[in-house]
């Protein structure tokens, strides 16, 4: 099946800002379809202005072009809007290992410092180095860390 091959290729396309996450872990691939016009891959942006979205679209295009699967179109899908709930379990695990706390809809007390595991954490800013991250600090090991925002 061509579509299965496409999904396997997508597993190897990484987010440029958080290089441990594939586009599948991130939950931004909405569909893979093939019709007479070729392959169509639907991608949803995480944030309206996230510069990574364009890089991701280009990377997907290039990765699929290397497989010689014919004509490939990468389409933007706005609705329904992306939510951090679409991050896969695997993606959450990879984030934590990478040192970024996974998003939690519950209070910050459930959040753990990705370095020492302490729940004594403090929010420094709801905005971080990329649109998808907030900035926290652990009150026990005193290290600052990023948190993947809940949106």
């Amino acid at each position, binding site marked *: 099946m061509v579509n299965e091959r496409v999904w396997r290729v997508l597993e190897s396309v990484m987010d440029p800002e958080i290089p441990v996450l594939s586009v599948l872990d991130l939950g931004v691939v909405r569909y893979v379809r093939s019709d007479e016009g070729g392959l169509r891959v639907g991608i949803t*942006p995480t*944030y*309206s*202005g*996230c*510069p990574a979205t364009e890089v991701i679209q280009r990377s997907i295009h290039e990765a699929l072009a290397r497989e010689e699967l014919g004509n490939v179109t990468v389409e933007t899908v*706005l*609705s*329904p*809007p*992306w*939510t951090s709930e679409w991050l896969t379990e695997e993606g959450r695990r990879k984030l934590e290992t990478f040192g970024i706390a996974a998003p939690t809809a519950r209070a910050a007390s459930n959040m753990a410092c990705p370095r020492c595991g302490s729940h004594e954490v403090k929010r*420094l*800013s*709801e*905005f*971080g*180095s990329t*649109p998808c991250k907030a*900035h926290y600090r652990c009150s026990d090991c005193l290290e600052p860390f990023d948190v993947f*925002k809940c*949106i």
Partner: protein
Amino acid sequence: MTSEAKFRYVLRLADTSLVLGQRLGEWVGHAPALEEDLALANIALDLIGQARLFLSYAGEIEGRGRDEDALAYLRDAPEFCNASLAEQPNGDFGRTIVRQFLLDAWQLEVYEALAGSSDARLAGIAAKAVKETRYHVRFSAGWLVRLGDGTAESHARVEQALDALWRFTDELLTPDALDEEMAAAGIGPSLPALRARWEERVGAVLAEATLKQPAMSRYPWYGKRGVHTEHLGHMLAEMQHLPRTFPGVTW
């Protein structure tokens, strides 16, 4: 409804985000602390992202082959349809926060209503933008309370900013013929209904910030119809100079 009317309406949404985003971008490297620098830059990025989605759509509605870049970089001030408040200069951090809060609170109401628009494309953009705007308004409201209810100096500065900027809020909340046409078609929000929600939200934050709500002057500002204060032209001169000096330039 003509496509020309819809084009101009979508430009209003686009340009308010674009101009406000550009203004916030002027803070990059100059904010009082690193966290605030990052926050303002992140909010600017969201706003410019929203503007790009709206501008691309506006270009498609117009159907004359203008893309987002042509609309952002190759229009002059009288063709911009942003609310006058968005183009007001940054001033100090307090003034930027006042401008930001008044507009964040407005955009939150607009996008929440627009998410149920009869226009599926606008509804999609708004449903995305509303999630981002909730973060924006928490940031600007939080700072407004800290500054208003802060030291005598910080209180005086945001009070002065509020007095200077309040006059521009009436434009956001009073519908003109185009706003009414869009509301009647189920495309845009009803501004009189939106005004009540906006006043409630803003009033609560101002009270917490120990700031007195200024009296509304009814001088009609019409940035949304292309009648701008002198500040927009200067801002555009900087924003547009590269693509105008080197037409078609790419990275």
